[in-house]
C-alpha cells in the first residue's frame, strides 16, 4: 500500500487526516480512490498541485506509476524563474 501524505491546505478535504495508505498503480488511480473517500478532493489535486512520488517531484502528474511501497506527497507547484 502506498503511503499518501497531505499538506495542511488539503486537510480540509480529508477531515483533518494527514496520512493514509492507498493501493494504486498510478497517480490517476490514487486520485480516483481518494475521491471515493473524500468527495471533491480530486478537484483540488488534478492540475492544481505537484506531487512527489518517492522523492521525485512531478509538476503535472497523471499517469505516473505508484508502487506498493511508494511515498506520495502533494506539494505546491514550483516553476522557478
Amino acid at each position, binding site marked *: 500500500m502506498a503511503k499518501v501524505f497531505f499538506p495542511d491546505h488539503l486537510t480540509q478535504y480529508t477531515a483533518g487526516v494527514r496520512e493514509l495508505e492507498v493501493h494504486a498503480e498510478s497517480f490517476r488511480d490514487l486520485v480516483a480512490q481518494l475521491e471515493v473517500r473524500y468527495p471533491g478532493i480530486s478537484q483540488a489535486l488534478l492540475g492544481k498541485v505537484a506531487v512527489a512520488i518517492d522523492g521525485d517531484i*512531478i509538476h503535472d502528474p497523471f499517469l505516473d506509476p505508484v508502487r506498493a511501497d511508494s511515498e506520495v506527497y502533494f506539494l505546491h507547484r514550483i516553476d*522557478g524563474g
Partner: protein
Amino acid sequence: MSEAREFKVVGTRVIRPDGVDKVTGRANFGADFALPGMLCGKVLRSPYAHARIKSIDTKQAAAIEGVYAILTGADFPKVGHEEITGGEGGGDFADLATNVMARGKVVYHGHAVAAVAATSAAIADAALAAIKVDYEVLKPVMDLDAAMADGATLINERMFTEGLPEKPTRPSNVAAFMQFKRGDITKGFAEADVVVEGTYCTPTVHQGYIEPHACVASINQGGQATIWCCTQGHFDVRSMTAKVLGMDVADIRVIPSEIGGGFGGKTTVYLEPLAMLLSKKSGRPVKMTMTRDEVFRASGPGSATKSVIKIGAKKDGTITAMSAWLAYEAGAYKGSPMAPGAMCVFAPYNVPNFLIDGFDVLVNKAKVAAYRAPGAPQSMYACESLLDDLARKLEMDPIDLRLKNAVSEGCQASYGPKFNAIGFKECLEAAKAHPNYKVKLGPNEGRGVAAGFWFNAGMQSSAEVHINENGTVTVIEGNPDIGGSRASMALMAAEELGVPYDKVRVLVADTESAGYTNTTGGSRVTFATGMAVIQAARDIIAQCKQRAAATWGIEVDMVDWQDGQVIPKPGVNADVKPLTLAAIAANAGRTGGPLLGRASLNARGAGPGFAVNIADVRVDPETGKVDVLRFTAIQDAGKAIHPSYVEGQMQGGAVQGLGWALNEEYVYDANGVLQNAGFLDYRMPVASDMPMIDTQIIEVANPTHPYGVRGVGEVPIVAPLAAAANAVRAAIGVRIHDLPLSPPRVLAAIEAANG
C-alpha cells in the same frame, strides 16, 4: 537513470556557438527586429499608484495625423477568472489581462491605461499627451504592515483570503494564507537550551536584466498573427496573448529573439497583447519597446518581504524547533512566491518540530514576477541570518552548526518528501576545507557563511535531432538560450552520437517549428530539455542500428553502437566493417529516408540544488560602505555539462544576490511613486564593485538524469544575501535586520552601537 560513465565531450569547456555574435553586436535581440510599414507603439501609464478611472477621452489623440490606432481597456475582451497553471504565485488570467491594460481602476504607478500606434515615436508621444484621463485618486497601500492592518484601504474589494481555516466574511488585502507544520512546536522550543528570534525585511527589487521588454506584432486580415519578442518562454507568450485577446493559439506564431537576461522577469506578457491589438486595429505591424523607466515601473519586480524567524537548539547545536512568519508582497494582483519561500526556508535542515505561516499580500506596486529561485532568497536570508546569530550564541563554527543539522539522502524535507541523493553536506565540507575560509581578516573586516536551497524544475520539453547528409547534426529545441544552453545541448548530443562538438548545431525554434516546451526557467533546461535531446539522440542511434543491420543483412540484435558508429557484434562475418554516422546518413535515402530523432517528455525528478557561500567584507566605519573582499560560491551541480557556464551561473547569482544584499531597493514616495526608476539611482553592482567570485562545483549525481544533471541557475542567488549580512555583522559587531545594507543604514547601525 544516471549511469557511471566516462564522458568524452560532456564536462569540457567548449566555446558557445552564440558567443561571438553576442559580444560583437551581431545577435538580434527583441528591439532589433523591424518590418516594412511598421508602426511605433507606446503606452500611456498611470501617474497614480491607486485611482479609479472615471473617463478616458481619446478623440483629440485620434485626430493627430500619423496616429493609426488607440487602445484602452474597453477594446479588450473580458477575461474570466482562470488559474495560470505555470508559476508558483498562482496568478489568474483575469488579473494578467487587467495588468496588461487597466480597466476601471489603476493599481500601481505606471499601470497601462491606453496605448497608441503611430508612424513615429514623436507622433506616438504627442498622441499619448493628447489622451485625457479623469481619475479619482485613492489612498495607496505601499507596504506589508499597512496592507495587513485592520481597516486597511482595500486594493481589491472583492478579494477574500484563501486558505484560512474558516471562510472569511470580510475582504482583505491578504490574498492567501498557507501553513506548513511538523511535530509539536511548543514542545520543541521547550526542549531547547537556547532560543533566538529575529525580524527581517527585504525590499522590492528588480531582476535588472539589461535588455528591456520589446516585441513586434503583425496580424493579417485572415487573423494569422506573428510575434517577434524577447522572452524566456515563447509558448507562454502564445498562450497568454491568446487568452488576453480571446484568440486561438493556432492563430499565433511566436518567434523568440536572443534574450539579454530575464531571471524570471520575462516569463509573462506586458507588451505583446497590446502590440497585437494595435496591429489588428491599424492593419500594420507594430513595434513596442519599454524604456528603462517603464521596465522598472511596470514590469514585475521581486517581492518585498517581512519574516519573523525563531529557532531553538540544544547546547550542542541540535535544532529542536523552528518557526517562521512570512509575508510576501504580491504587487497589485495576487500571486507572490510566498509558497516556495515557505517551502525553502527550513529545507536544508532536519527539523523535528516546525511551524511556518505564509501570507500573500497585495500592495499598490507592479505585480511581482518570478525572480531567480522565487521567494527563496528572502526567507532564507532571514533564516540563515538567525542561524549565524545562533552559532555565535552557541560559540560554534557556523559551518559546523549547519553540518550538525544538515539534510542528506533519506532525510525528510520540510516541504514533504524524502530527499534522494543530494550534495548539501558535501558543499558544507568543501566550504570548511576551502582556503578562503582560513584567510586571516584585518580590522573592520568580517566573514559570513550561508546556505541556499532551490527545488529545480522538470516539466515538459521536446527535441528533434536531424542528421544531415554528411553526418553533421542539427538539434531543434524550444528554449531561448539565456545561460549557454545551446552549447550544453550540443555537448549532450555530441556525447550520445559520438561526434565532435563542432559538428552539432542547435536551433532555438519558434512555436510552429519546435514541439511544445515549457519556459526557460526553474533551472530546468539543461536537466529536462537536455534529457529530451539525449532521448532524441538515442532514437537516432536505434535507427542507425536498424539501418546498418538491414544494410548488412543481419538481425539488429547482432549490431552495437560504439564511438559514433555501428559495429557488428562478435561472431558476425569479418567482412562487415563498422558504419559511421556519416556513412549511414549518406546512404539514408536508400535505407528509409532522412534520419530524424524525436523526443518529448514531462521530466520528473529534478534533483534539488544546494549551495554554500562564504563572504569576506570590509566596512568603512566612517561611511558605512561595504566592500566585498572575497566571495566563494560552492554548489552541487549533479554533473556540470559545461563547467564554465555552471561557474558563470554561480558567479552571476552571487553578484545579483550581493546587489540585493548591499544596495538594491525600490524607493517610493508617500504617494507610491517610484523615485529611482533607472540604473543610476537603482544601484546594481558592476564589475568594478566586485572581486573575482571564486567557485567550486560539487558533483553528486542526480539519479533521475542520464548524466546526473541537476539545475544550477537559481540556487546561486539564494545564499549571498545572508552571507553578506553575516559578514557585515561580523565586521561591525551588530546585526542589521533589514536589507539593503547600504552605506546610510550601515553607518547608522555603527553610530547607534557606538552610542
